[in-house]
Structure formats: C-alpha cells, structure tokens
C-alpha cells in the first residue's frame, strides 16, 4: 500500500508534505469526524498502523483503512500522551520524515475530541459572528464575563496553549486556530500569537477576526503581531478572500526570489542610485529590471501609488501563501 501522502504529493508536488498533513487533519476536525476517521487518516498518510488508547480502549487501523484486530508484536513509535488519551504509529525501525508530524496532529485532533466532550461551547458562541446578540450575552454570563467588559482575543496555533485563560479551537479560513480570551492584558503569550483589538466582550468576533489575520502575519522573526499595529491595513486584510487573490497579489507571487529582492530595493530606496548600491548592480541593469518589473506588475513600483499597491499586495500575499508548519 503506497502512502497516501506520497500519492497526494504526486498529484501536487509543490505544497510541502508537512502542510498537507496539517491541512488534512484541520479539515477532518472542522468536519467533526470521530476517532476512527482520525486514525484511518494517520495510518493512510504514514503508510503504517495508527492506534489510540482512550479510557482503556485501544483502536488501531491499517493504511488501507481497515480496523486491526490482533495486537501481537506491536511497537508504539512514535507515541504521544495527552491528558485523556495516547496515540501512536506502529513504525518498525527508523521513523519516516513525517511520522512525528502525523502523530502530533493526530494527538491534537484526538485531544480536541475529548475537549469537545467536556465543553459547553460558550466561548465558541461568543466568538461566532452568527450568534444572535442575546445568546452571546448569555454565553458570556456562563463564562462570568460582563458584556461591557474590555477583552481581546488571542489567536495561536493549536499546539501553543495559553495557561489560565478560557480557550477553544475554531475553524477559520486559514485552518484550525486556538482562540484564548484575554481579560487583563497580562495574559502570557506563547510563541506565534496574533493579538486581536481590545473591544467590548459582546463584540468579541471583531477582535477574533483581527487576531486571526495578525496570527497569519507572524514569523519566526516577528512571533507576536498585534492587529492594532496594522492600522487601516487591518480593514484591507479582513475584507480579503485568499481563495480569490487580487491580480496584484498573483503578479507578485509569480516573481522569483531575486526579482522580489530587486523590487523591494526599488520600493524602499530613495534613489535608483541607492537601489543599485544596495543590490550591487549596475545602474543600467537596475533600470532594465525596473522597466521589466513595471511591465510584469502592471504598475510602476517607484511612484507613490505604485508603492502603495506593492505594500498592499505584499501584505495580502502573506495571507494567501500557507504558513509552513515547520517554520
């Protein structure tokens, strides 16, 4: 049985395997599947048996999606333990490149199943735009939060938990994200967090939307992004649909790394001379690149409006390109 991941990669060699693993489990969780489907996914993705133990019950599935009945001679490697469950792959010998990633996403997904069981869903109602105001107020009351209280929502990756604050997991247009309610401004923020705007508790969905955008703009160099620092650009980012990228974004995405470096110098440098010094290129070559880029982009990136279009497109491109989960 060929690994599903290999087959998916053959169909789409450009996206990273790690990203496919994350996308796949996110979609399963968002669709609300149960434990068996999660195990079938892990087994199919990795090409080996995947198992889980929950409250003393063991379930195992092979890569063809069939339930395994015998438990003889099984090795649990790699394995993850959660508060209520253990999950594992049964890889004999050396681990394959994505085994750890598959088990990690499986563990998160199984933990979410458990969490859902014990949760009343109040925070989900608070964060959902579609919740009528009265219901949101009632949900806030169950969380002992005054509707007029100032709050902000923090968006993090599923694996980045923030201790001591109400938290849930939400399906967003950018995949599954963890939402944590910040009431004090003192909530310790872990790695890679997007901070929503401060708002009244009964307008929490607005804060959450900003937090989701901000989380997408984090990077290793810039791990915490506060949506309020985006200013008017936040509105642009919120109204953007990454499924339907603007032509300016597509044009930028098609440039190679060197062309993007030249473009950035053209945008940022006061003069063409400064740009050619920064890039170590001859004045006439940079002029030629400038002309070529103007043609490819459909605008001149050195005019005031061209700079504006570039900055907007660069921001939206970061919302379009999926985050590399290994970064």
């Amino acid at each position, binding site marked *: 049985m060929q690994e599903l991941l290999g087959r998916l990669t053959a169909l789409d060699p450009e996206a990273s395997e790690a990203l496919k693993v994350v996308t796949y489990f996110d979609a399963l969780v968002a669709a609300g599947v149960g434990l068996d489907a999660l195990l079938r*996914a892990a087994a199919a993705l990795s090409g080996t048996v995947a198992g889980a133990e929950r409250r003393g019950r063991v379930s195992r599935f092979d890569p063809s999606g069939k339930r395994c009945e015998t438990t003889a001679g099984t090795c649990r490697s790699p394995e993850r333990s959660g508060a209520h469950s253990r999950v594992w792959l049964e890889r004999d010998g050396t681990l394959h490149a994505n085994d750890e990633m598959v088990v990690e996403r499986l563990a998160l997904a199984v933990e979410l199943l458990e969490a859902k069981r014990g949760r009343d869903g109040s925070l989900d109602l608070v964060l959902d735009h579609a919740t009528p105001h009265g219901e949101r107020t009632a949900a806030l009351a169950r969380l002992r939060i005054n509707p007029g209280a100032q709050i902000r929502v923090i968006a993090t990756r599923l694996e980045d938990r923030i201790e001591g604050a109400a938290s849930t997991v939400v399906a967003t247009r950018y995949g599954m994200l963890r939402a944590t309610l910040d009431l004090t401004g003192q909530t310790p923020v872990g790695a890679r967090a997007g901070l929503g705007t401060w708002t009244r508790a009964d307008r929490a969905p607005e804060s959450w939307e900003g937090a989701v955008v901000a989380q997408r703009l984090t990077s290793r160099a810039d791990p915490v992004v506060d949506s309020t620092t985006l200013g008017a650009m936040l509105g642009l980012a919120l109204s953007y649909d990454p499924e339907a990228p603007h032509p300016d974004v597509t044009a930028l995405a098609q440039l190679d790394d060197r062309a993007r470096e030249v473009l950035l110098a053209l945008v940022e440098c006061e003069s063409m001379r400064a740009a050619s010094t920064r890039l170590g290129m001859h004045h006439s070559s940079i002029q030629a690149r400038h002309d070529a880029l103007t043609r490819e982009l459909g605008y001149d990136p050195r005019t005031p409006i061209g700079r504006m279009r570039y900055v907007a497109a660069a921001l939206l491109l970061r919302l379009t390109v999926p985050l590399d989960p290994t970064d």
Partner: protein
Amino acid sequence: MTSSRPRPPFDPELSAVLAVLGDQLPDLTPETIRSFRAQAVNPMPLTEQLLGEHGVTRRDLAVPGFLGDDMLMTVLARADHIGSGPAIYHLHGGGMIAGDRLLGLAPMLPWIVEHDAVLVSVEYRLAPEFPDPYPVEDCYAGLLWIAANARQLGLDPDRIVVAGASAGGGLAAGIALLARDRGGPPLAGQLLLCPMLDDRDQSVSTEQYDTGTWVRAHNRVGWQALLGERRGTGTVSPYAAPARETDLTGLPPAFIDCGSAELFRDEAVGYASGLWAAGVQCELHVWAGGFHGFDLLAPHTAVSQAAIAARDSWVTRHLAT
C-alpha cells in the same frame, strides 16, 4: 463559479481529502487536453511490487482494434493460473480523452487472486484524435478478440464480465449493447463504476456538481472531444452514450455504483432504473457524500471501504466457481 442549487455535501472524510488536493487537480479545457493527460496521475499505479505481492503476472500483447489497427492489451493472471478461468474485460477511465489501460487495475487484483480470474485491459484510442466510434469500437474489437482467443488466454468465453470506471463504465455499457445487437459473445455481467453514460448535460446532478474531482466543465470537454458538434443532438449513437438507448432488454446483469455527490449520479441511477424496467437484473449503490472516483482516490475512508466491499461481494457472486 458555484452552483446555486442545494446539493448533498461531501462525506466528511472525503471532504478532508479534497481540502488537501485543493485546486491542484489538473485543469481541463479543450486546449489543455494534452497537458491534462500528462498531469493526470494514476492514484494507484500497477507496480511490479504490487503484482508480486499478489502473485500476479503481466503479459502485454498487440491485438487488432477497430478497422484492424494494432492496439495494446495487458493480460493479468495468477502466476499459477490453470485451465479456463472467469474473465474481467476492463476498460479504463479518463473522460474518453485521457488515461491508459493500467488505470484502475490495482483494486481489481484481489479478484484475480480469489477467483483465479483473468483480467484483460485494453488501450483503446482516445478522443479527440480518435473521436466516436473509435473508443467504443476499439473496445468491442478487443472483446471479440479475447472471446476468439479464449483458450490461449486461459479464460472461459462464456464467463466474461465487462468492467470499467467513469468513461470505462460508459464504454463497458456500450459494448454490452453492441454484443447484444451484433450477436457477439454472451456476457456474464457488466460492472459499471460511476459510469459516464449521457452526453446531454441535463441532469440535476450535472447541474449540482461544478465542484469536486470531475466537474461539469470537464465532462463537457470529454463529450465534446468524443462527439464534436453532435454532442447533445439527436444523432448520437447509444453505443457512445448508452443512456440514450431506449431498449435495455436482453442485457447482462449489471452492478452500478456512484457517489451521491457527483455529477454522474443521476445517469447511473437512471440507467439502473431502465435496466430494471426492461427486466434486467441490476444492483445499484449510491454512496452518501462520494465525489467522482472517491474509492480510487481515498480508499482508506469508511465510505470507500463500504463501496469496495459491496463491489467485491457482487464480483464474488458472479465470478466464483
């Protein structure tokens, strides 16, 4: 472009597979047929290793196709095959415009092993270079050849089941009609997997599924390539588009399956109803939330396993000795 009609959603496990594939499925327009052929990957390639694991050997032959032109044929049988076994005559899918004779064979290997069957798959010529009637006539020529050379192939000419998925399902239904009308070999069954039967582009399911793996725009490209200007008109032969046949009497017992969330749903269900009305035995399975080809692309999911088990059961009832 999104359909405004309500429609059954995809099965949750299958929708996750689609989420990973995203918009990475190759684009298909009349202009991109060549690149579509190059990009369309067999999700389950028939490797030497896979054949070895099943103890199945492979032979490739050149046989006469339509008008006597050479055509390739692959014959799969158990390495220890003896005597005359039941036969599966397989026609591959690919929208009449793509695919090759090895596409879709991997899931059929267990049938060869369990029933000591001989599986024959033929490289019929593809549209638009070879429009109708080339594909269906190539397939029928192959059927006549294996019936005439049954002893050499180790198969029983009275126990041939024709089988195919998608375009291959349409071609299988087409040659079952041809065999009936031209007094060809009597067939033991027709296995029509999510078959492509109707060029008229008018069913509700056709309008519902402009999303998934094989979508309405693709389907139009396939039929247009096969039929050209005749597509959707009264001049289309029922051998090319079996849904057009008004007399379905005297056909072999059929197995038909499809997903509830694919554009071929209504033509598959309609063909089954037609067979029943004509007194032909037919087993129909419509799998909830299945997109086109779900069992081949995502065989590990619960709904695919149910589909595969149902198919295996029918094959066992029709091939077992």
